[in-house]
């Protein structure tokens, strides 16, 4: 895997300014986000915690260009996301963002190797499969490249998902409860892997978790409730 040195970048990786998101539903308008201001430095690891429905996932989707805010500015990896077309946002994700989900989200009809190669194939890289093999080796799955998702354990599937998220050396990695579907021991191993890779690649990490241990590994923890950041806890950064 590539590990470019990007730690010295001065500009923040994520900049959200007064971001709101209102959704209309049959029951009336719902204010999902109510004026979020956030700046995440390059290479920083930020944890998002809070009750269900607080707006954590929505905040993450906005950072990934998967959701368009009702108002406010969103700048990620130097790109202004507001106003970009669906396809431009897809290219932005392909080039800059890796995502790890709680439910792994591997394509069931593709092998581990093919799943990992997808972002590189989409980018038109000729060495997609070599790079994917290296990424799988980095997560300890070099012996499982030809297996389909349903032939892998939950922990193995999540490792494939992590390899896929890191394979294109993204500047930002988003993780939505990456250990939520795993037992404690496997979850710990995944946390080690995730943080290790993020450190090696100087990747900015934004992760949602209910797990205090995982949150404790982050540089900064944001508490979100009712669509607002109610508390910032920068214990790790202060150390």
């Amino acid at each position: 895997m590539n590990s470019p040195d990007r730690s010295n970048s001065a500009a923040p990786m994520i900049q959200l300014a007064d971001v709101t998101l209102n959704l209309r539903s049959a029951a009336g308008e719902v204010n999902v986000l109510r004026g979020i201001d956030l700046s995440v430095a390059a290479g920083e690891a930020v944890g998002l915690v809070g009750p269900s429905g607080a707006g954590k996932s929505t905040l993450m989707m906005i950072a990934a260009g998967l959701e368009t805010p009702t108002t406010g500015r969103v700048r990620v990896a130097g790109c202004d996301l507001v106003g970009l077309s669906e396809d431009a946002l897809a290219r932005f994700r392909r080039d800059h963002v890796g995502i790890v989900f709680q439910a792994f989200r591997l394509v069931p009809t593709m092998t581990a190797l093919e799943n990992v190669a997808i972002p590189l194939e989409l980018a038109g890289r000729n060495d997609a499969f070599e790079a994917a093999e290296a990424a799988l080796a980095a997560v300890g799955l070099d012996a499982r490249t030809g297996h389909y998702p349903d032939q892998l354990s939950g922990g193995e599937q999540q490792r494939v998902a992590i390899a896929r998220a890191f394979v294109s050396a993204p500047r930002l990695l988003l993780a939505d409860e990456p250990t939520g579907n795993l037992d404690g021991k496997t979850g710990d191993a995944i946390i080690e892997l995730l943080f290790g890779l993020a450190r090696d690649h100087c990747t900015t990490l934004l992760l949602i978790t209910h797990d205090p241990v995982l949150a404790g590994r982050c540089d900064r923890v944001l508490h979100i409730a009712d669509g607002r950041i109610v508390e910032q806890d920068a214990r790790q950064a202060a150390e």
Partner: protein
Amino acid sequence: MVLPRSITLPLRFARRELRTGIKGFRIFLACLALGVAAIAAVGSVSSAMMAGLEGDARRLLGGDVDLRLVHRAADDAQRDFLAQSGQLSEIVSMRAMARRSDGEARSLIELKAVDNTYPLIGSIELAPAIELDAALAERDGVFGAVVEESLATRLDLEVGDHLKVGDATLELRAILMREPDRIVNFASFGPRLMLSEAALPATGLVQVGSLIRYHYRVVLHPGTNREAWLQELDTRFPDAGWRTRSLENAAPGFDTFVDRTTLFLSLVGLTALLVGGVGVAMAVKTYLDGKTETIATLKCLGAPSALVFRVYLLVVLILAGAGTMAGLIVGATAPLAASALAGSMLPFQLPVRIYPAPLLVAALYGLLTALAFSLWPLGRAGQVKAAALFRAVVAPLAGRPRAAFMLATAAAVALLAALAIATTPDRVFAAWFIAGSIGAFGLFLGAASLVMAAARRAGRPRDPELRIALANLHRPGAPTPGVVLALGLGLTVLIAVALIQANLVRQVTERIPDQAPAFFFIDIQPDQVDRFNEIVRAIPGVSEVRTTPMVRGRIAEVNGVDAEALTVDPDSAWALRGDRGLTYSATPPDGSEVVAGEWWAPDYAGPPLISFDARIAGDLGVGIGDTVTLNVLGRPITATIANLRRIDWSSMSMNFIFVFAPGTLEAAPHSVIATVRVDDPGTETTVQRRVTDALPNVTAIRVKDAIEAADRILRAVSTAVRATAAVTLLAGTLVLAGAIAAGHAGRVRDAVILKVLGATRVRILKAYALEYGILGLVTAAIAAVVGSVAAFVVVTRVMRADFVLAPEVVAIVAAIATAITLVFGFAGTWQALGQKPAPLLRNE
């Protein structure tokens, strides 16, 4: 060849998608394969028929050219010219009676007198294998004859026995196994008897006005330009009045038959494909519903919408290609099957080979249908939001795709319509068919929406089962549109076919026996009429005898315009094609009604007036006061139309397109035809025997035999129609099964949850019975109306017959269809009812 990445990448992803095999695509494949197979089979068999006909045209025609005169032979100048042009063969054909020499058995026959050059092309096959000349030659003062086996059986004759035709006694010398120029003829009234031209005078059948056909076949000298020769023939003998046939129209009746049959069968095949298209759309939607998570994942990883669309378009196209290919293989082998099943009934060898043109057309139909029905769901697939992955349940596809995909769908439908119109000989009919299909689709989709809206607005009935049934009808992802479309279209075709058939059967079996006479007697000489009346009226049980003079003539000009230059509605073209029977009468004939103009005075004596068939007059665009010139035995007679009659052809009375006023035709050589009605069918044999014994030149045609011949045609036609309707119904059933299977997983889950909440199996079953009962009934009701309208149009406009709605037929078909829906619904639910809740809840 290096393909661009915009193709290789989607191709690579599509290939990975197809690793799971055809699961979920079985109905898709079956629907496409079935429709394509039907169209390819019809096209291939039709091409094979035409190729066979073309290959054997000379043999079937009996030469390069066949000229036919009715009533009279060619004159010496004409005969000389024909003989100088090449090899000439003269044939005389007519209907006559053959009797066993002891008079114990008799039969109507198709008599053919041949000269010693016959057959010019091909060979005749006799059993025992003797030469035709020897078989027909005069031996010890008796001429020989050969007959078809059926006649030998009917008259209980063996080779060497004697039989009588007219006044002549003939010796049966051989059985006719194969006649090279005999074209298949369902409607032939009697078996063939062949004798020599030299034997004909002795029969006494050649009399003035008898319905005799003289055929002159010519094999032209090598190098003769046929077109130029035909032109010269026309210039030399402009008034000859013969009907000319050459290789291009060796069997006009037969190729029209093949054309019409092909038209109907290909449209029924297309209906099957369109019904199957509903299955295609549902299969693609269900498949893509299951792929929303994968699509969202790909988009999360940076795949643009266009790539997603291309990947799944390729998946659909590859599968459509496979389904189409399977259909083509079946269709391509159809000529082989047709040759094995019906080869012996055809007058020519069916060339068994691959016919690329109809296969190409069928393949285009298959691929365009797949596109027309899958672009809509494919377009929606590109719109799956990647953000969906952050939510617990990925919602199925819904709503409309982008405008570009709706336009592409419309373009595919337009191409499909254009293909149907371009490849169908009768374009107007094809256009109506397309419009009707689109209308039916719209109607059933609208009906489905109405059912869903009504179920939504029905409020909350107190009965919980009814409440569940109504909710199931309109909930998101309900199978209502699919079931209504599939069942509705299939049922419409079925009801239309059943009603058309019921009407045809009624025409033949219900109406005719009451009104029809028992016999037609033809070729009675004017001086035999009194004797004929005397004989027949003396037989107890005979209730009515009618005689009418008959002359043959053909339309030469209409208002001074040559008949060949007229463009006529194809339905009435037959009236212009050859000789028609003409009569004269002082009073209006029975079975017809004057609808315009006035009937002439009984003692009319003035310039020629005629009464004309109203429908044909309408198609020719003529009316009262216009003139028609008829060629009667070579002499042109111009008459003014005095009135128009509406003729009930099904009455089986003596009906004539043209009836002359007294004073014109009496002098022309003519014969008399008669109808005889009997009260007691037991006297029929006596009537036939007494007349033909006393007047051997008179031919008796039993109406029952004619009805049987018509019945044979009907049966053959309805078998073909039923077979193709079955294909449509099969497609509908497949789609219905698919619609119900698509919701099966949801059904099982619902049933389990209902059981967990305390519902008994009977109550769940009742809820489903109500749901499918409502669907089946509503669909059957609409299909009954649409199918009846379709049948009405076909019966009244295409077949020009009276339409009678047979409510019992509609009711039976509708009831069966509702039952089928219930059975399918239950089949899908049965498993659900048997499920133990625990395993399913654990997996949830």
